[in-house]
C-alpha cells in the first residue's frame, strides 16, 4: 500500500512537472500568429478556437474551452480584435464572446443577437454586427458590452467594410446590393447594386472597395468581382466569371493592398490592375481536400487556407508562402473557418 501511495505521488509530480513545463498559450499568442475560428457542425456545439503560432510553428486547439471551462457555442463564425479584447461572433448561439486576447479568459458575453455573422469596429466605443436572418445591423457599445441599438437596413447582412464615415454592408443571402450606412448617425444613406450574393469585400491600396459576388449558393447566377469607388458609391469595374459553375468565395488582399486572393476550386491570385480574372489556380486543391476559408498574413503575405475535409472530422490549416510554396499543414478543429491574424511587426516566416 505504501508503495502504491509513493507511486501515485511520484506520478503526480511527473504530471505536475510536465504541466509547469508547458509554455502558457498567452506567450505564444503575444509572439504572433493567427486565430482560427472552427465553426463546428450546425447545432452540434462543437465549434472551437485554435491559434497557429509562428513562434512554435504549430497549432494550439480547443483554446476557448481550455481557458474557460465551457464550450464556445454553436457555429462560431468570425473573430476580430480591438485593443486587448477579442470578439468572437457565435452565429447559432446568437452571441458574442468577449475574451482577453492573450489569456483568452472570458470578459463578457453579449447575448440576444439575431444570427450574428461579423463584427466591425466603427470607433473605440462602437461596433456593427451583421445578421444572416434579420434586416437590422446591431450596434454594440464596446464600453458596456451591450447592444445599444439597431440600424434597419431592410436587408440581411454579411461582411462589413468601413471607409471614412461610411460602413459598406453586403446583403449576401439572396441579395445583390451593398448597403451604405453613415456611421456618425447610424442611418442608411445609400445602396449600390452589385452582382448576386455579395459575399466578401476588401479595400485595395487606393481605397477602392472590391466585392466578390458569389452568384448564389445554388449557382443560379454568374459570379462577379466588382470594384466600387467608395467616395461616390459607384461601380467602377465588373468582372463576370465565365460559367455559372464557378462559385468563388472568400476575397482577401495582401498587406500591400495590391494582390487579391480568393477561393475558386483552389486559391486564385489576381493583381488589382489586371484586366481579366485569373485563368489558372495559384494553389491547387488536391483530391480529398475541401478548401473552405482563406487568410492572408498582412505583414508577410503568407497564405493560410483551411481544409474542412468532410466537414465532420477535424480539418486542417494549410500554410503557403507568398510564392505558393507549401510550408506546413496542421490539424485544427471541425470546419476551420475564418482566421484573424494577430501579429507583431517583427513576425516573419523566415
Amino acid at each position: 500500500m505504501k508503495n502504491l501511495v509513493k507511486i501515485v505521488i511520484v506520478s503526480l509530480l511527473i504530471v505536475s512537472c510536465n504541466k509547469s513545463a508547458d509554455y502558457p498559450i498567452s506567450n505564444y499568442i503575444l509572439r504572433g500568429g493567427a486565430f482560427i475560428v472552427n465553426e463546428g457542425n450546425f447545432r452540434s456545439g462543437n465549434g472551437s478556437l485554435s491559434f497557429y503560432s509562428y513562434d512554435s510553428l504549430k497549432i494550439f486547439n480547443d483554446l476557448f474551452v481550455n481557458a474557460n471551462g465551457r464550450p464556445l457555442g454553436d457555429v462560431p463564425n468570425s473573430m476580430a480584435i480591438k485593443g486587448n479584447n477579442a470578439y468572437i461572433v457565435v452565429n447559432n448561439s446568437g452571441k458574442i464572446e468577449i475574451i482577453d486576447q492573450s489569456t483568452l479568459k472570458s470578459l463578457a458575453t453579449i447575448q440576444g443577437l439575431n444570427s450574428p455573422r461579423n463584427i466591425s469596429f466603427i470607433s473605440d466605443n462602437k461596433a456593427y454586427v451583421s445578421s444572416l436572418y434579420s434586416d437590422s445591423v446591431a450596434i454594440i457599445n464596446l464600453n458596456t458590452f451591450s447592444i445599444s441599438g439597431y440600424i434597419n437596413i431592410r436587408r440581411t447582412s454579411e461582411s462589413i467594410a468601413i471607409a471614412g464615415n461610411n460602413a459598406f454592408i453586403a446583403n449576401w443571402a439572396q441579395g445583390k446590393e451593398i448597403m451604405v450606412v453613415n456611421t456618425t448617425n447610424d442611418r442608411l444613406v445609400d445602396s449600390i447594386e452589385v452582382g448576386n450574393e455579395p459575399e466578401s469585400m476588401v479595400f485595395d491600396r487606393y481605397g477602392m472597395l472590391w466585392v466578390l459576388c458569389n452568384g448564389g449558393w445554388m449557382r443560379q447566377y454568374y459570379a462577379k468581382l466588382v470594384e466600387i469607388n467608395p467616395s461616390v458609391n459607384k461601380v467602377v469595374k465588373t468582372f463576370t466569371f465565365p460559367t455559372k459553375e464557378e462559385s468563388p468565395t472568400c476575397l482577401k488582399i495582401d498587406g500591400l493592398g495590391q494582390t487579391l486572393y480568393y477561393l475558386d476550386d483552389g486559391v486564385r491570385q489576381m493583381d488589382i490592375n489586371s484586366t481579366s480574372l485569373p485563368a489558372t489556380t495559384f494553389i491547387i486543391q488536391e483530391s480529398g481536400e475541401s478548401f473552405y476559408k482563406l487568410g492572408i498574413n498582412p505583414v508577410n503575405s503568407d497564405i493560410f487556407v483551411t481544409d474542412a475535409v468532410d466537414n465532420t472530422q477535424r480539418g486542417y490549416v494549410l500554410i503557403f508562402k507568398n510564392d505558393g510554396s507549401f510550408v506546413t499543414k496542421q490539424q485544427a478543429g471541425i470546419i476551420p473557418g475564418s482566421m484573424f491574424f494577430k501579429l507583431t511587426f517583427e513576425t516573419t516566416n523566415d
Partner: protein
Amino acid sequence: MNGQLSIEKDTFKIKEVIISGNKFNSEASGFKKKSIDSSILVDYNNRNLADMLSENTGIFIKSYGMGGTATPSFRGTGAGHTLVAWNGINIGSPMLGQTDFSLIQVGLIDDIQIYYGGASMIINDGGLGGAINLVTKPVWNKETLISLNTGIGSFGQYSGLMKVRAGNYNLQTVTKCYFQNSENNFRYLNKEEGPEPVWQTRTDNQLRIHGFIQELYFNNKKNITSAKIWYQNSDRNLPASMLTQPNTGEKQFDESLTAMLNYDASKGRSNYSFTSAWIMNKLNYVNRLASIDSRNYSQILTAKASLENSIGVNTKLKIVLDAQSSEVKSNNYDHNTTRNTATLAVSADRNVNRYGTSILFREILDKDHFLIPDFNAGAQFRLIDGKEYYFKASISRNSKIPSMNDMYWVPGGNPDLKNEYAFIYEISYEMKQNFSGPLKLIYNVSVFRYNIKDMIQWHPGVYSYWSADNIKKVNSKGVESSLSLDYTLNNLRTGVRADYSYTIAQAGGSNIENDVSSGKQLMYIPEHQANALLSFGYKIFYSSWMFNFTGKRYITVDNSKYLPGYILNNLNTGIKLSLKSTSIDINFEVRNFFNINYQSIAYYPLPGRSYMVKILFQLVK
C-alpha cells in the same frame, strides 16, 4: 409480469379459429424474432415507442428528449435502416425513409414484433437493421370491453387512452382514441453556458398528440375481411440545444392517416392474403428565425398479395407481391414527384424433425429497372427432441431504396443514387425452459456481423450546399443477449428480465487521405447498452424496478469526444382491484429515481426525477 395487467386477456385467444396475416413464429427458420410481452406494453400505454424500445430491448434510440424526435439505431445501422410496419404494411415516410418513434403511442398497439436483421425481409425490403411490426388485432369472443387509461405527471404531462372493443364471433369492432399534452418544462442543470452551472427551465418544448384507430373485422369461418383506419396528428415546439439561441420559433406539425383493407382466406392447403393501404403523411416545419416554412405531403398507395401453400407435411412455399406508388408534394422539391416500385418475394420454409431451413428471394422493380436481387437463407437445429433449445444461423443480403429526400431534395438530392445494401451474418442460441412448475426461463444470445455498402451520406462537395452520395461503408458487429426468468407460486409473482447488447459499428474508410474517422466507432452508437427489470407481485399489489444503462457515445467522428454513459432507474408500484366485471388499476411511477443529469444528444438536456400517476379502469361484459 407484474406491471399493469394486460387488459387484452391475450392468454384466452387460443380459440382463434382462423389464420391471421402474422404467423410470427412459424416463418423464417433460423432468423431471430421477438415479441414484446403484452404486460410490458400495458405499462407503456401512455408512452411512446421510443421509450418502450430503449428500456426493454437492445435497440438504441437517439432522442432529442421529451417531445423531441427519436430515431432508432438497430445493431449499429442508421435511422433509416429500421423498417416500421403496421400489420405488415410499411408505414415509414417515403420522404425521410425513417420514422419518428416519439410519435407512435404504445397504447394504440396490441402487439409489437421485432424482426432482427435479415428476418425483416419477411415484412419488406429496407430494414437492414431490422423491422418493427406494429400489430393491432381483434379478440374473437362475445364480450364488450371498455377501458380508460389516464395519466398525469410531472412537467405538465396529461394523457388519456380509451379503448372500446365489441362484437361476437363473426364481427368485431375496436376503437382506440388517444391524446397526450405535455409542457415538458423541466428543470435542468446547464453546465455549458457559463463558468458556473445554472439551473434553467426548458422552454418551447410543448407537445400535443391526438389520434385514433378504428378497426372492423368480419369473420365467416373461411375468411376474414377487415378495414382499419389510423389517424394521428401532433403539434410540437422543437426545443433548442443549450448552446443555440433560444426562441427560434421552431415548430413541427405532423399528420398521418392510414387506411387499410385486408382479406385473409384459407382454402385447402393454401392461405391467401390481400392488403391494400393508403398512407398519407404531412410534415410542416417552421423556423421563424430562419424564415423557413417547409411543407411536405406524401401519399403511398400500396397493394400486397400473398399466397402460402403447403407442399407435403414439412414444406411451405410463400409468394408475396407488393406494389407501391408514392407521391410527394413538397416546397423543397422542384416539382411533384412520384415513385413506383414493385417487389416479388418468394420464400420456402422446411421443417423436418429437429431441422428447419428457410430461403427467400426478393426482386425489386424500381420504375423500369430491376435491381440486384436480395436473398436470405437460414437454418435452425433443435438440440434435444421435445425441448425448446435452438441453434440458429442465417445469412442475408438486404437492400434499401434511397429515400425520396435523398434523391429529390433541393438542393443536394441526387436522383442517380444507388440502393444501399448489406450482407448480414448471424448466429444465435435460444432456449425456453419450464423448470419444475412455477419457474420459467427464456434465454437468447446472438452474434451478428454487418457489411453495409453504398451507404448514403450527405456531404459537402464542390457546391456550397451538401449533397447525397453512396459513399459510406459501415461494418458493424456485436452481441445481443436477453434473459427472462419468471417464478409464480400461488399469490406470489416474481420476474427478472434483462437485455444486454454490445455493438461495434465502424466507418469503413473513404477516399480521403488519412481519414481519421476510418475504423472508428460511429457517432451516437453506444458500445454497451443494458437494461433490467425486476418485478414483484403479491395478491393485488405489484411493483417493479427498472434499470437502464447506456454506455458512452462518441460525438466526434475521430472518437476524441464523447458523452459519458449513464444509468437510469425507474420505480413503479400499484394495486389492481377487481370486482365482477370491472377492474381498476392505480399505478405510481418514478422515473429517473436518482435524478441523474444526462444527455442523449450533446447539449440537449433531459429531465431529472419525474412522477406519474396512472389509472386504468376496465369494464368487461
